[in-house]
């Protein structure tokens, strides 16, 4: 199975794992889920849409990352997944 990960569980970072799958599923674990859970999901969805990705399972363990970090980690995880093909 194709898989890619990027990031860390350091403060202000997030660890994103992507797996090839059918359709999009997103799992989010975040220390700021109450405040920014929806926003984080939206960043992930928007980024996937931009990259034209329709079949992936995304797991995000978030330690207070800002949007740009979530986006960058997701993009790299997907690049790595595609390289692992």
């Amino acid at each position, binding site marked *: 199975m194709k898989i890619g990960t990027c990031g860390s569980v350091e403060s202000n970072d997030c660890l994103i794992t992507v797996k090839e799958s059918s359709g999009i599923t997103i799992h989010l674990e975040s*220390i700021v889920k109450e405040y920014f859970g929806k926003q984080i999901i939206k960043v992930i969805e928007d980024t996937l849409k931009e990259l034209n990705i329709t079949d992936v399972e995304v797991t995000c363990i978030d330690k207070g990352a800002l949007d740009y970090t979530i986006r960058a980690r997701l993009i790299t995880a997907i690049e790595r997944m595609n390289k692992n093909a």
Partner: protein
Amino acid sequence: MKNVLNRFVPRGYIPFQGSKTIINSSKRKLIPEVYTSNANKLCGSLAEVFDKLNITDGMTLSFHHHLRNGDYCLNMVMQEASKRGIKNLTLAPSSLFPVHAPLVPLIENQTVTKIYTNYLNGPVAKTISEGKLKELLVMQTHGGRARAIEAGELSIDVAFVAAPAADKKGNANGVDGPSACGALGYAIPDVKYAKKVVIITDNLVENLDYIEIDEKYVDYVVVVDKIGEQSGIVSGTTKITRDPVALKIARNTAQLLNELGLIKNGFSLQTGAGGTSLAVASEVKKIMLEKNITASFASGGITAYFVEMLEAGLINELWDVQCFDLEAVRSYKVNKKHYGMSSSKYANPYEEDVVVNKLDFVILGATEIDLNFNVNVTTDSKGLLIGGSGGHSDTAAGANVTIITTPLIKSRIPIIKKELTTISTPGEDVDVLVTERGIAINPKRTDLLDKLQNSKLNILPIEQLLEISYQYTGIPEPIKKSDKVIGVVEYRDGTIIDSIYKLGED
């Protein structure tokens, strides 16, 4: 009912009306001090004390927190109470720490049903946040607790006083012995006004060189193996932070103090013992050395850093309510200019010549601050109890200039909020917020704004600082608060400044 800050106040409590309203318009209430008539004080065990004092259901027991997270005494006393099946006790410890975790089952089985305290964190805080304490938690301030005790509002049946050294007549101090903790300032109101006073010591001596607690108040003395764990009582050293953001905040704070003309001969200051506070003290010290300035006094909890400044002649006096490290304990014991003070002398709003009122400035922290400069140090943004005012509101009310130092954002959470989770200290007593991306001055302090007109410091309206934090974090979703009130935040005058809610949604 709502108070002037538009916060809910449960039935039966007096709403907060402004920081000085009641204090300026009422007189000090004092019950008579309670002296002992008992001559034969030495007891063999806590069980004997419980028997002699006939400690029963519904009584109020008090404790001080000078042994901090190393304290064994509260747990020992409560173990005895639990063994005897006593119920519905009210506890009034000046603070509670993680070491007091054994209280959790006693709260759940209603051995303890009501708690008054000034600060709490750890498992007990979590249990109370979850709504498991039967009655309301009352969060007081250090000065407010002293006031409530001397006024008879917080009536203590038995004060258990952990003492690092005592004689069999009941005289005691905090400076001698293996569990030395230094000043015993928070225990003094309890000792004077509790109906009965029990000294718990692990160091019974023939003669004390220094007496902090007078035998005339003490009913019993009980000797135990150990009153606490030294490593939890005082830290070896308190260190200045190396965190660059905190250091930047500290430098800007010192520069601001300098521009406000607050670093002048004879000035007085208080800072906390946290790394950032010490960094501010260190930056202030640099300016003092450069301009050849000495301070008249520093107050509050004392650390090695202030001891060093006292010994270097940079500060004339230390007014110490509790010692944070071993250096402070040593200095308190030997240095005549290192004074102890009771929590009342420190912060009681009705005390004549109270120390907080003489402060030129105080440096404080915040877990949240709103656009009106109201500050939360009681709960985190989810509503979990993580601290309490301690001396926060007292020093803010007393000091000429109150400065909050905090990073603008802590792991994506903006510290500036449109609405606070809990109000601990009213914004009318908070003058300045210093963050790494700018400084906000309370608009009512036009005097400060005038002095800073030509400042090169980045001074912004607090609303703009909020906007800056939103640029980084985005706008947080509002948290759904539970409706269930589990406690109240009592302002130093005894009124209710806010309610505390159960954690999570109902």
